[in-house]
């Protein structure tokens, strides 16, 4: 087993054991924090696919996070007020069922990623960053003025949505559900990185002319990666909204896009568990340092500076060494 695999196993063990300890020690807030970390990690795992493997520096991934959140908010708010979403041409009712909400979140964010990607992926570098950012701001300001769903104030959902066979109101059960989703997505991403698609996408980042010269279209490869990436982040948005039982335009904010990217940089770009390590560390720092000082972001900034200057592979890179091509 490589050193990176050992680190990954330790992280998974921690994600399983710490919340279980919290149940035993009756520390429900620790479970909430862990859920927050796991859900934010999922959002970053989505971005890591585009950023790490595809080299696409998207500063607009909050769009997908927000769409997932609002998919949940809209569906659940109609269900709790017993009003249909629309009556014509077909009757669509709200729902409190997580699997349906997840599906809607994934499909909606994938479609939006397809549109945003079709436009933005024709550019590169700083233009790509700016276009993704611009799309993010469009959604942000749209939801602020979207009075039907709370506008600036957001939308509260009073009871957490349900999942067949689980009581999602019990924190550890909801946590377990989120963790399973994260692990399933990680397994998928791990397979994807080694698959023919992953090989081609990874090469399109390093040598796009070569990829064209062997008969593959870098644009299409990146577009598909962007869509999958957006869909994963969208799913995370739905879970995040269910954790908070609240959605608001801040889910679309560019600060959030930045934070998701920060998780990846802290943990290690293109490393499978990079975003997970980054998100967990971020949530821990936010909690502890945030408790000590209102200026905790200064310390986060110093940490980020240190990593960018001295440890470009992020924490995983520091602990596990350089990535090996055939692992």
């Amino acid at each position: 087993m490589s050193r990176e695999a050992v680190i990954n196993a330790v992280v998974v063990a921690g994600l399983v054991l710490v919340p279980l300890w919290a149940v035993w020690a009756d520390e429900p807030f620790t479970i909430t924090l862990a859920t927050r970390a796991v859900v934010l990690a999922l959002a970053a795992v989505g971005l890591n696919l585009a950023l790490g493997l595809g080299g696409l520096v998207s500063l607009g991934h909050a769009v997908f996070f927000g769409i997932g959140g609002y998919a949940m908010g809209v569906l659940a708010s109609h269900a709790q007020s017993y009003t249909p979403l629309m009556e014509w041409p077909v009757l669509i009712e709200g729902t409190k069922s997580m699997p349906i909400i997840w599906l809607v979140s994934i499909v909606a964010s994938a479609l939006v990623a397809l549109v945003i990607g079709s436009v933005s992926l024709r550019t590169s570098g700083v233009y790509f960053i700016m276009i993704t950012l611009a799309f993010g701001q469009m959604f942000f300001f749209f939801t602020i003025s979207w009075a039907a769903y709370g506008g600036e104030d957001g939308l509260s959902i009073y009871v957490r949505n349900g999942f067949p066979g689980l009581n999602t109101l019990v924190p550890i059960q909801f946590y377990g559900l989120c963790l399973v989703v994260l692990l399933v997505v990680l397994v998928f991403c791990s397979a994807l990185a080694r698959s023919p698609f992953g090989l081609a996408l990874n090469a399109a980042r390093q040598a796009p002319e070569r990829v064209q010269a062997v008969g593959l279209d870098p644009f299409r490869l990146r577009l598909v990666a962007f869509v999958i990436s957006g869909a994963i982040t969208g799913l995370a948005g739905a879970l995040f909204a269910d954790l908070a039982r609240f959605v608001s335009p801040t889910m679309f904010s560019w600060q959030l896009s930045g934070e998701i990217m920060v998780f990846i940089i802290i943990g290690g770009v293109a490393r499978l568990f990079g975003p997970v390590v980054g998100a967990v560390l971020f949530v821990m720092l936010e909690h502890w340092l945030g408790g000590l000082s209102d200026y905790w972001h200064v310390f986060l900034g110093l940490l980020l500076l240190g990593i960018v200057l001295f440890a470009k592979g992020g924490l995983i890179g520091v602990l596990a060494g350089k990535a090996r091509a055939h692992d």
Partner: protein
Amino acid sequence: MTEPVLETRAITKSFGALKASDAVSLDLRPGEIHAIIGPNGAGKSTLIGQISGALVPDSGAVFLDGEDVTALPPQVRARKGLARSFQISQLAMEDSVLQNALLGALGAGGSPWRFFRPALSDRPLRERAEAALARVGLTEQAARVTAELSHGQRRLLEVAVALTMAPKVFVMDEPMAGLGTEGSAALTRLLDQLRHEAPILLVEHDMDAVFALADRISVLVYGRVIATGTVEEIRANRAVQDAYLGGET
């Protein structure tokens, strides 16, 4: 006469006031190596760009296997059987040597729209990639990271990637550049065999290699083809001697 596999008909390309290609007409016939020589700035790279699809000519047309491909992007031309190597190696440097060869095999003989099974365990793909590496003598380097290869080994990998595609035409942009004497001798032997699988359009500065390999040579000066002929004809051509060879042969 047999149909040319690759043909340019009076392609012209200008960058501002500079005519980088001026009504260039060339053809490449089955089984031959057609070398393009010319001084720096003669428009060789521009010509390769238009043949491979990276550049679109202002006028004129490019035919691949009898089909007009002038408007097609590089990846479509590659799918139709055009394999090129680059003057400056274009390889996925973080990936292994084998992965780079797999990429070539993937473009020609596989689909990239597969998301679950590892590329390395795709038997047909892998056999194709390994066979190409064996032909250029890189088998023992297969698991190494490409960035660790010597310059010469990278040149060989460029050729290996083209080989995995089993193309109809090879377009090689200075494959010998930066190779030592031994390296170019080995690559010369390899290209000599390759012409029987697919003809080669060879842009090259190494005159020993060109004279040893070429069935025909075209001389490009200031974007124009000033002569096309056999090695002997080109050696004897006054205009070529004046313009390029400088009478040294």
